[in-house]
């Protein structure tokens, strides 16, 4: 049985998430095709063809798929889906936007955010903000699945899959792209960073996030935030870590001025080493931290930056 993996890409480059989704596909077993849909995506297709385990890359390069709007993307994938037993995408905002639409077009359930493959029809996934892990079995002939990238180690490169064009063009008069405001950053992407330094409401304001930047610079880290920090307008939403934000599992996660609500823990508790800096020694974040420092962050951060 073959598997179709939807490639994730931005600005003409293949996103790291795709190599994790291919890893999940390998765990399921079978021929793996990658679908690259977008406009001006030749370089993305080439990169996808180089991923280990990929048998074929299918490219839909057309203005219809620019910005990956859900309506044409789902129509395209639904058109291709009959050739496959599984359709997989990353549990990114893009995968989450498109795949359920595909599932419903094919009248099948979707299995969201799998973290392990038990067999080709049975998977593990977190529920209740990660406070329980469900093992679920799909009874549908076509399995539509989003993959939590932290659950699968990325496949390497070294593949040399063939690339073939798809000429199906979905028409879409219902939705129009207006604009995008994307955060610019020289830092590594949150989902892929080896070190993440996150700030919460305790940071006090957006300006104080500079204290985290200094440390992130020294550690080559990405900077994240709690929802409270996002809601208070300290930082943009793309920095949110948690049940309803990004899921991260770096080697080192440093939580600063974050209390440790279950919704935040859901996004970071699989990190290898967790450090918490909080002035309240009762803060729940200390229950998951390997190293807790009870301190005022305005004292601890400058000192930490200096000593790194």
């Amino acid at each position, binding site marked *: 049985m073959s598997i179709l993996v939807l490639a994730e890409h*931005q600005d003409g480059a293949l996103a790291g998430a795709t190599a994790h989704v291919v890893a999940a596909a390998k765990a399921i077993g079978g021929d793996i095709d990658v679908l690259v849909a977008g406009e001006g995506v030749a370089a993305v297709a080439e990169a996808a063809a180089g991923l280990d385990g990929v048998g074929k890359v299918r490219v839909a390069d057309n203005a219809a798929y620019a910005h990956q709007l859900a*309506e044409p993307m789902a129509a395209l994938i639904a058109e291709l889906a009959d050739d496959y037993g599984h359709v997989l995408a990353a549990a990114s905002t893009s995968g989450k936007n498109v795949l359920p639409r595909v599932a419903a077009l094919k009248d099948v359930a979707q299995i969201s955010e799998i973290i392990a493959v038990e067999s080709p029809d049975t998977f593990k996934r977190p529920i209740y903000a990660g406070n329980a892990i469900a093992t*679920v079995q799909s009874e549908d002939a076509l399995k539509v699945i989003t993959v939590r990238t932290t659950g699968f180690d990325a496949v390497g490169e070294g593949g040399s899959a063939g690339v073939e064009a798809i000429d199906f063009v979905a028409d879409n008069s219902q939705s129009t792209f207006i604009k*995008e405001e994307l955060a610019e950053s020289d830092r590594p992407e949150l989902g892929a960073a080896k070190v993440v330094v996150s700030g919460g409401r305790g940071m006090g304001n957006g300006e104080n996030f500079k204290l985290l930047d200094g440390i992130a610079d020294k550690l080559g880290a990405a900077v994240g935030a709690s929802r409270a920090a996002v809601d208070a307008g300290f930082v*943009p939403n793309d920095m949110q870590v948690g049940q309803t934000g990004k899921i991260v599992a770096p080697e080192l996660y440093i939580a600063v001025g974050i209390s440790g609500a279950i919704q935040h823990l859901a996004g970071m508790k699989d990190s290898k080493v967790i450090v918490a800096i909080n002035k309240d*020694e009762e803060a729940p974040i200390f229950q998951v*931290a390997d190293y807790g420092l009870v301190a005022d962050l305005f004292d601890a951060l400058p000192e930490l930056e200096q000593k790194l």
Partner: protein
Amino acid sequence: MKVLVAVKRVIDYNVKIRVKADNSDVDLTNVKMAMNPFCEIAVEEAVRLKEKGVATEVVAVTVGPKAAQEQLRTALALGADRAIHVESDERVESLGAAKALAKLVEDEQPGLVILGKQAIDTDNNQAGQMLAALTGLPQATFASEVNVSGDGGDGKVQVTREIDGGLQTLELALPAIVTTDLRLNEPRYAKLPDIMKAKKKPLDVKTPADLGVEVASRVKLLRVEPPAERQGGIKVGSVDELVDKLKNEAKVL
């Protein structure tokens, strides 16, 4: 324009869940239940559209057991005009809910349907997108801003969406499906007089059979386990000690 809002009854987001001893599911006996937080935001947005004169009627819908009528009453207290309960005691997941909702969209012909982006029990994040597919309508998920312009045939909605890289703005032709993110609005609390009034507002009960749909989940829940517990670590006394531990014990620096 009529606005349909979908609300789901879920465990209260503050409750720490327990897994049943036989690992069959999460234990919900005597657990506080509430409206899914994203659905509260959906109801609030619909009610604000009515207050602005954009919406003429707000209809709240749920698919679930009898007890879910509590959440419909909450929606009515918050300002919805009437409610529809699709009663089912089966384990309903997103596709089943979307099928029932799709039939109601056909019957009610709303200009806009607002759902939460995700139910905090299954964490599925699917129903809005599925409803959009089943009804053939355009979708804007993870909304942090919703602006409706025009009505009838040439009506449009501009939606700002929270995406991984930042924000994206789309324009959809109405009717359309929108799912809410946390920042869309801050839901109000229901006031006592409104709670009293809500008891008299109309609440229709239907069955999936009435709608001609099958809502039971086709995904079998084989087993539910607690996650691997993290061992609590230690407290360090100083920044120096922290740096030393990270370098020499954890070896992550």
